[in-house]
């Protein structure tokens, strides 16, 4: 009798929270701290290998930093030198040129192909896989295969051109031809990816919008421009910005196209900003100057993304 009442009262005390037992305190600590342990690995690793290099690039860019460890603070001298550097402006011109040449047709083609795939078609998975396959292969492989296709003497493209009675083009030698060759590589690899992104968004558009439009007598192309494109706006912004970030960092395709050299052709006709950065830091060991190029590139990406955002917002309004 007495012992059972003791048990009962201790149980009541426990329920009231007078003396929290060890096990339940552990549970409470688990509930409180487990989330932080779960997310900690990301933040720790990102801080060391993501955030720190980012900030440190800014710091390095303010120095005359030649060999690792030897450096003097020079303020913004690297940036002022960069603005007066014709090689930098050349690389910038190439990057923007190739970027425009690649991105505009790429997104238009992606929009067109997504529109085709959005119909009721047989062998849907086959066609979807068909358009995505280029994206699965590596950039290095793409550079190698297209390097051969665009080769001067034995390339398949020149073979086709000469079959039609035109003169063979030395794709590497001229500015425009090298830009086109590189833009073709970029387009080949990324059109399918953008197609699927746009297709995903297209399928989220309610079907009855199209039904009522066609009852009102709207032709398919009117439906496309009046319904599909405006409703795709957020996704279009996404694809444009992704392409901008990728396009302005262009590196592997032109490097392999130029047989692994960072110079981008005899006159630097296809040297991109990232190639110039690589050449400066890893071949001439001017780390400070290279870091300044990296930060300028970052600024450029931000500016371009914002301009794109504004343009698309305005165009699709």
């Amino acid at each position, binding site marked *: 009798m007495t012992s059972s009442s003791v048990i009962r009262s201790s149980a009541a005390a426990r329920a009231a929270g007078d003396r929290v037992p060890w096990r339940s305190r552990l549970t409470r600590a688990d509930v409180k701290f487990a989330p932080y342990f779960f997310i900690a690995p990301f933040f720790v690793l990102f801080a060391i290998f993501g955030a720190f290099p980012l900030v440190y690039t800014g710091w*390095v860019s303010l120095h005359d930093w030649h060999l690792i460890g030897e450096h003097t603070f020079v303020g913004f001298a690297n940036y002022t030198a960069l603005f007066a550097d014709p090689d930098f402006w050349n690389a910038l011109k190439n990057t923007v040129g190739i970027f425009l040449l690649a991105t505009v047709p790429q997104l238009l083609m992606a929009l067109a192909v997504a529109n085709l795939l959005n119909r009721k078609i047989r062998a849907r998975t086959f066609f979807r896989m*068909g358009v995505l396959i280029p994206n*699965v*292969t590596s950039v290095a492989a793409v550079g190698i295969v297209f390097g051969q296709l665009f080769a001067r003497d*034995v390339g398949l493209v020149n073979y086709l051109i000469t079959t039609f009675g035109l003169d063979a083009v030395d794709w590497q030698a001229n500015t425009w031809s090298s830009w086109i060759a590189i833009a073709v590589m970029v387009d*080949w690899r990324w059109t399918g990816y953008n197609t699927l992104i746009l297709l995903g*968004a297209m399928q989220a558009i309610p079907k009855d919008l199209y039904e009522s439009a066609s009852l009102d007598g709207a032709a398919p192309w009117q439906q496309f421009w009046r319904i599909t494109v405006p409703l795709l706006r957020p996704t279009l912004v996404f694809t444009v910005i992704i392409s901008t970030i990728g396009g302005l960092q262009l590196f592997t395709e032109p*490097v392999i196209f130029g047989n*692994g050299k960072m110079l981008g052709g005899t006159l630097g006709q296809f040297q991109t900003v990232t190639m110039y950065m690589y050449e400066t830091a890893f071949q001439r060991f001017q780390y400070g100057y290279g870091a300044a190029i990296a930060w300028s590139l970052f600024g450029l990406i931000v500016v371009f993304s914002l301009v794109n955002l504004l343009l698309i917002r305005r165009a699709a309004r």
Partner: protein
Amino acid sequence: MKAASVRLWRTSPLTYLALVVGCLTSLFPIYWMFVVATRSNDVINDVPPPLLPGGEFGANVGRVFANEHAAFAYGLVNSLVVSSVVTLSVVFFSTLAGFAFAKLRFRGRNGLLLVIVGTMMVPVQLGLIPLYMLMVKIGWNGTLQAVIVPFLVSGFGVFMMRQYAAEAISDELVEAARVDGCSTFRIYWNVVLPVLRPAAAVLGLLTFMQTWNEFIWPYAVLDANTPTVQLSLSLLATAYYTDYAQVFAATALATLPLLAVFILFGRQIIGGIMEGAIKS
């Protein structure tokens, strides 16, 4: 109504023609890669060039593996190790953190999630120089740690898993497991992870492919003694660019594992890409 929907979904032969042409354009360079990889060099330079595969693949592959300057077999093994470790780690940490962000209450949750989304916008190239300096300082340049450790976590992965977990897992499920006395980690391991498996598989596939294909960072930090497969490939291509048969055999070897993965899991990969588009 019926007529309208029929008109809407009518698929003309022209549509198929356009799609077939599109797919042929997509596939041709890959097909061409196999054509050259299976031919001998003197045939490739013929006019007109051969358009069908030949029987020289074995001989070309033999030359690739015998080439001392590219360490191609070593590159394949290294890439397999790097891609597997990175994939397992990214899937584990992304599902763990994604679950925490989607289903657990803690102070600073929204702010921290915003930071993760922000990290997805940072271009890799920006950190190339200091990351390289860091690797030199800790003596990791030229080693596989250098291409593994910085990529063990992924902001994209955490965000993707958070989006999926928020929809796929009900709060009741988590609460019920909690009432049954599960620790938070056991809830993750026994309840959440099985539900997240389809999305985790897609993340794993995408991560594996991306890591396998990574070029610029291995190019900067590794050397010819410890290459990944892409580095071997570029060494081979840039030094032996007139030996197309050999270079293309190597390119085919480096691409085959990816094509195999893609043919097996293409449907899921495509689903993942399209899904991601709707949510972003």
